[in-house]
């Protein structure tokens, strides 16, 4: 017997880890991975609620989240490549100007 609250706590923990990584990490790629971690935490609570309420819509929403995450990863990594090309660094502290 696994209560819903266990899944929600795990999901909240993953989301919190993602937020913490987003705030304390300095490498732009790691920050990006923290965002993926947050999305994964949310996906877990979607699936847990879908199981709890016997509603499949929650699982369909997980697909949409995955699609958005994949699109975001593709565009974001392209932006990271471009930032690295112009600035030669991945440290966000040194990337503080929109314009060179």
């Amino acid at each position, binding site marked *: 017997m696994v209560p*819903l609250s266990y899944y929600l706590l795990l999901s909240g923990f993953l989301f919190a880890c993602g937020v913490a990584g987003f705030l304390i990490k300095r490498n732009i790629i790691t920050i990006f991975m923290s965002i993926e971690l947050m999305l994964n935490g949310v996906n877990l609570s979607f699936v847990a609620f879908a199981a709890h309420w016997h509603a499949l819509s929650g699982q369909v929403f997980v697909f949409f989240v995955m699609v958005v995450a994949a699109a975001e990863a*593709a565009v974001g990594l392209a932006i990271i490549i471009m930032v690295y090309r112009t600035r030669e660094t991945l440290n966000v502290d040194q990337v503080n100007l929109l314009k060179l």
Partner: protein
Amino acid sequence: MSFHLILFLAFGAVCVGGAVNLLAQRHPINSALSLIAVMAALAGEYLLLGAEFVAAVQVIVYAGAVMVLFVFVIMLLNAGEEQETKGSRVAVLLGVPGILTGGVLIAWVVARHSGTEAVAIGALPGPPADLAQLLFHDFLLPFEVTSVLILIAIMGAVVLANKPEATARKVD
């Protein structure tokens, strides 16, 4: 202690360990590998919740495609160890107690006000046929819109990651 709970705890431990390791590691490639572990363990959790198809897609799309993209970019840019920067002391002094208080509060509320019976693998309304019925019928418009989104993302990635000289040469 049921078998379900043991599996949940095992996968959950991998999730928690991977997430903490992602924060603790200094090198991005180590963070990426621990994120892959988190995603694979989450696929196991989805299986426990009766969502077989979501679990398969999680492994294929997330742990497969997206993370390969990440690892590829890390190797392409030859990303090294992350540099330390000085954090604010006020943030540490106020943030840590704040996080602890918030976490305990949320955990208490969630643990108190929710409960559910366990589900057997495959017992839930999760067969791919039902999911497809919902996805291609009730959610048809969002589905089509996401395909446009993917197309735009592909074009955006190609345009952004293209070398400026390559574009200039094509124009000439």
